[in-house]
């Protein structure tokens, strides 16, 4: 039996990048400490603020919601939860009830915004249309762009000061690597522990950004949280190739993920010199913030022969 480096109880996790073994209790404590440290160090939340958390029902967002509700209790913040129901059969329909149950048991107001009601089509239907029209865009593009836009709008309508997402270390490092490979300076520049306030955008915060995916999973499992653990049917492509590479590198050379994050965090201030600051406008179609005439969501919808059906997402009854 291998023992916890700190308390001598049975170890549940080998944190190889730090050369320590952790038992269930010490892992939970460590994750909570890092979560608090991220908030303090990057000033993610101020007392009295209203926070919207994006909750899919997966391990990361359920862990984030539990961590945030405890934090908000201490710091007198208000927490509301938003779930975007993209409409992915056999996946989101299973995680949504889990998100709802967790919010209910924690006494958090929970709002669901669906692609179907907003755009007249589920993601599954969009993917079928995209294939029929041969747009050559992959499902993650539609899902990512539209989910991000709806989350922002819903958080704004709910009067949130911050929008918290559950991106963990692995998510962040994958995004960094993807943008290195795609040479996408503006996307790269937008990564980080928080995204600064801009007209029309609720500032986004990522309190789990320095916690590896496996530790978030262990946190949720060891605390006995009810989470949805299933693989999105649309995974694949370059995202998966990059994720597999990073996991192989980390397994063989522990600490690589943190090294990539640290390097990026040192590069980031310099990126501002390269990335042009662009003016924020309002989408002529839906009114959401965009740098172009039409926002990316509306542009994608148009290509699919769809259009936005509702301007406002949150009605007093949609809770």
């Amino acid at each position, binding site marked *: 039996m*291998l023992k916890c480096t700190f308390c001598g109880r049975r170890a*549940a996790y080998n944190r190889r990048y730090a050369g320590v073994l952790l038992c269930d209790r010490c892992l939970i404590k460590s994750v909570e400490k890092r979560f608090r440290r991220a908030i303090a160090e990057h000033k993610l939340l101020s007392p009295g603020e209203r926070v919207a958390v994006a909750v899919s029902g997966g*391990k990361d967002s359920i862990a984030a919601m539990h961590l945030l509700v405890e934090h908000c209790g201490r710091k007198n913040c208000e927490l509301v939860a938003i779930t975007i129901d993209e409409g992915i059969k056999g996946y989101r329909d299973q995680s949504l009830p889990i998100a709802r149950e967790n919010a209910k048991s924690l006494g958090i107001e929970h709002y669901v915004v669906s692609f179907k009601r907003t755009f007249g089509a589920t993601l599954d239907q969009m993917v079928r249309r995209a294939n029929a029209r041969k747009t050559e865009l992959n499902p993650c593009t539609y899902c990512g762009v539209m989910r991000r836009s709806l989350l922002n709008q819903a958080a704004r309508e709910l009067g949130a000061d911050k929008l918290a997402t559950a991106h963990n270390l692995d998510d962040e490092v994958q995004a960094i690597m993807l943008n290195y490979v795609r040479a996408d300076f503006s996307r790269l520049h937008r990564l980080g522990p928080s995204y600064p306030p801009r007209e029309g955008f609720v500032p986004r915060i990522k309190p789990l950004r320095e916690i590896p995916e496996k530790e978030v999973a262990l946190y949720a*499992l060891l605390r006995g949280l009810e989470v949805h*653990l*299933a693989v999105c049917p*649309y995974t694949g492509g370059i995202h998966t190739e990059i*994720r*597999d590479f990073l996991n*192989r590198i980390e397994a063989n050379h522990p600490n690589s993920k943190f090294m990539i994050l640290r390097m990026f965090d040192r590069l980031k201030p310099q990126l501002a010199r390269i990335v042009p600051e662009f003016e924020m406008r309002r989408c002529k179609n839906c009114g959401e913030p965009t740098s172009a005439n039409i926002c990316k969501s509306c542009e994608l919808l148009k290509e699919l022969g769809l259009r936005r059906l509702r301007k406002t997402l949150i009605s007093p009854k949609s809770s």
Partner: protein
Amino acid sequence: MTCIKIVVKQVGKRHKRELRLAPHATIADLLRKLDQNRETIVVRRNGKIVVEEERLSDGDLIEILPIVTGG
């Protein structure tokens, strides 16, 4: 040197498998054999979450739980 026998259940897959391993084999050895990356899974041994460096014993039930779910 006799082999040890263990049962492996990959969560999400229907069937359990019985595997024979060298004595003193660790969970990490088993994962290598199954081509599973430790970054992407959590391992339960007889119901308890354990570290991959633990040695296997004859009759162990090993559950492999995939944790990477997103895009």
